[in-house]
């Protein structure tokens, strides 16, 4: 029993750490430019297909990852911002959200048409070690370590570098940031590119587990929104806490609860948090203006 608990915990943390990456990107966008991206889940699937495609041409996974990174930065970062966010945001944040729902349809169906409806296997890491009667698989450990390293790097970048602080400042007070001479437009663009990098890394980590399927984005997206909200919508640290918590709870629910309602767990948590603690676990209650 104990061994099962540890295994479920570790794989839950691994999945949760990936959620954290995706949720962190989601939070960055919403904080930096009021972009609530309903296509965030599909943003993860697209680079996975790019890596697979590169792989099918004989390139190693790492090379595919680099290509995916470039493609994502360009398409999901720069083009997404320039062609969709910039022109639609002035009409309203809700209009933009609805546009990202349309984008989700575009991405999913493009991937369906190009790649097909089947779930493609994605190379992962096999094996693991027995520690007493607990089996720890390398895959989960690698995922966990990589995701934690990435989030730590992100946090250090945001908090310890001048560029990171300027990005935070642009999100917390764009007017004031402009008065201090910060190029807010550029900071926002960097935020989009950062998000693209995060989802590409998430694609690399999550695909061995969930495989690559054109509509995986729906579930991944739902988990990422939930993680972001549970942790505190507007904070990278919140996304980490929310992601890990969600991954573990979901994994336990799937193992010990009714399997067919596994997907309901993040949804229930989401509803409970929005209604009773909308600022999330780490967020501060925002002052309400009349």
């Amino acid at each position, binding site marked *: 029993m104990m061994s099962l608990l540890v295994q479920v915990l570790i794989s839950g943390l691994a999945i949760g750490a990936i959620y954290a990456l995706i949720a962190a990107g989601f939070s960055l966008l*919403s904080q930096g430019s009021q972009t*609530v991206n309903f296509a965030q889940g599909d943003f993860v699937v697209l680079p996975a297909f790019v890596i697979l495609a590169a792989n099918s041409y004989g390139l190693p996974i790492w090379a595919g990852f680099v290509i995916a990174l470039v493609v994502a930065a360009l398409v999901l970062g720069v083009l997404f911002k320039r062609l*969709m966010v910039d*022109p*639609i945001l002035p*009409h*309203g*944040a*809700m*209009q*933009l*959200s*609805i*546009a990202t*729902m*349309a*984008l*989700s*349809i*575009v991405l999913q*169906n*493009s991937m*369906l*048409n190009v790649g097909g409806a089947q779930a493609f296997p994605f190379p992962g890491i096999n094996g693991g070690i027995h520690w007493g009667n607990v089996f720890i698989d390398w895959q989960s450990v690698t995922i966990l370590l990589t995701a934690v390293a990435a989030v730590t790097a992100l946090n250090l970048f945001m908090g310890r570098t001048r560029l990171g602080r300027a990005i935070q400042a642009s999100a917390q007070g764009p007017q004031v940031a402009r008065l201090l001479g910060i190029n807010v437009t550029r900071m926002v663009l960097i935020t989009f590119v950062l998000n693209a990098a995060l989802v590409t890394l998430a694609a690399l980590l999550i695909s061995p587990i969930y495989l690559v399927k054109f509509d995986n984005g*729906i579930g991944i997206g*739902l988990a990422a*929104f*939930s993680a972001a*909200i549970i942790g505190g919508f507007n904070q990278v640290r919140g996304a980490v806490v929310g992601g890990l918590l969600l991954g573990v709870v979901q994994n336990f629910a799937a193992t010990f609860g*009714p399997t*067919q*309602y596994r*997907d*309901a767990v993040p*949804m*229930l948590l*989401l*509803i409970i948090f*929005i*209604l009773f603690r*909308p600022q999330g676990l780490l967020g501060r209650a925002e002052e309400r203006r*009349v």
Partner: protein
Amino acid sequence: MNHPYRVLAIALLLVLVGGVAGFGLKPYPIYLISQWAVYTISAIGLNLTLGYAGQISLAQASFVGIGAYATALLMPHGVPFGVTLVIGAAISFILGVLLGFPALRVQGHYLAFVTLALATIAFLVFRNESWLTNGTSGIDKIVRPFPFTSDLAYLWLCLGSLAIVTLGTWWLLRSPWGRAFLALRENPVRASSLGVDVRMYTLLAFAIGAALGGVSGALFAPLGQYIEPAEFALPLSFSLLLMVVVGGSGSFLGPFLGAMVAVALPEVLRSFQDYYLVIYGVMVILLLVFSPDGLVGLIERAVRRRPVAAPAEPAK
């Protein structure tokens, strides 16, 4: 709402054209027009909630599902179609009231997420509670109510229902309730200072919108004569939301046009095969970039080239 009678006349004319066209058409086009009528009813409901009262809902597909299952499950037990339709609408109305409660606490994106979560849970219930819904196998051989058994007759039932819904919605929106819904969308704080019961109208906006989703579902089940849970999952909610936005959120004719595009586009783009959804999505994005008030806004701007300027104050 500058010309209240004109929009009503246009809407009813569209319905009439659909009905008359049915005479000369093959079963498939008749099926498409029926589908248009069914989607339009659902989109009218969502337009009431989203476009007029300003409350986003991603759960409209769930109410279509409730209406559809109520009809599919009750009709074999000898309950007449008219009654199953009312039951589906009533259950949706009540659940719609419950859906409205989160809207009293949160707005905007948070509300979108809550309704999205509830819609996901509703889909899981449809899928998992096989004892009731027959799970992923779905329910087939749903009979059409007498005397609307032929394709053409069923088309008229759908269009007739749409005509009634159109009239009812038109009346509602012209009444003080419609004005209160708009007030809710534009400025709830000011509205409540004028005595508008924001709580009550918010719940009503959700409930009436949901009830229309239920009506649409009741018509949906016998149309294809087969239903399964996946039809009422998130993609339908997204799709209905896009119909409202494409047509023109908050305009009376918006749902009619939006549903028309959603139904006709796959047919028009038949030669592009599976790419039609990609094209549809791109079109929606382009529309949001260039005409945030949808096709109705686009048409209005084309018809009325110059906006009416406010006359200056009279000379003293």
